[in-house]
């Protein structure tokens, strides 16, 4: 009764409450204040991934809206086996890749598995990517194929383990390692093409 008279506000929910507890409370009470907490925590990050992959702000905003609807409708299916962030990022990457695939804008998504496992790929130091100027990182990410971009974002932006990436992309761990190596290689090649003088 008290809840009806004094509806719960987002500010009443402790900021230290874990995602899993927020979800449990949301599913038990259907109080939208709990969903608002999840929205505040993750909407910016989801939008960031969408804009990196879809390149246009309006498309990224629409995608963020649709992804949150998916999250909301499937929240009861979240089993807690993985981190909540991993689960929602998985929805985000799959959604964006699907949008690009449907628009057939990126041929790399159609020939993704043709590359052989046995090609030798030189390893590139992480610092090469991590210490780049943000303005340049943006330019290179705009140029490389969406699939390579998503592998780099999962590894360097979301700090996902190889195992987590393998679960999201439904590829073996060795395939994921190879994909990351290839993505780094394409990144370096693109960088050299654009910034020739350095």
């Amino acid at each position: 009764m008290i809840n009806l008279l004094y509806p719960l506000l987002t500010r009443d929910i402790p900021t230290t409450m874990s995602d899993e507890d927020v979800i449990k409370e949301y599913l038990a009470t259907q109080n939208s204040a709990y969903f608002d907490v999840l929205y505040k925590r993750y909407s910016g990050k989801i939008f960031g991934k969408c804009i990196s992959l879809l390149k246009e702000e309006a498309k990224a905003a629409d995608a963020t809206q649709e992804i949150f609807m998916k999250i909301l409708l499937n929240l009861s299916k979240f089993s807690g086996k993985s981190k909540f962030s991993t689960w929602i990022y998985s929805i985000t990457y799959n959604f964006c890749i699907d949008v690009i695939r449907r628009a057939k804008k990126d041929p790399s998504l159609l020939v993704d598995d043709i590359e052989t496992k046995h090609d030798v790929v030189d390893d590139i130091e992480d610092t090469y990517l991590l210490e780049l100027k943000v303005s340049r990182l943006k330019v290179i990410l705009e140029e490389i194929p969406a699939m390579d971009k998503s592998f780099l974002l999962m590894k360097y932006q979301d700090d996902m383990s190889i195992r987590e990436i393998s679960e999201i992309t439904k590829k073996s761990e060795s395939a994921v390692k190879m994909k990351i190596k290839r993505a780094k290689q394409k990144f370096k090649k693109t960088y050299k093409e654009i910034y020739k003088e350095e």
Partner: protein
Amino acid sequence: MRNSFKELEKENMERFEKESQNVKDKIDGETSSFKFIGDVLDLYFSKVMGVFVAMSGGKDDDNKPKKDNSNPAD
């Protein structure tokens, strides 16, 4: 160590701030529509099912004679 990917993420998040409330309003609008449809179905579905049951020759629970509880000895 610096992480330019994290810096880019922060930049994109700041970019979203002006759009955030607009997206949230759209989500709230969509959830309200879902909730409304759910409530309507909840309210009328049992009645519609009752009509179907009655039409197919079954007995509608609503037409059942109510048990007379007036005699405490029963």
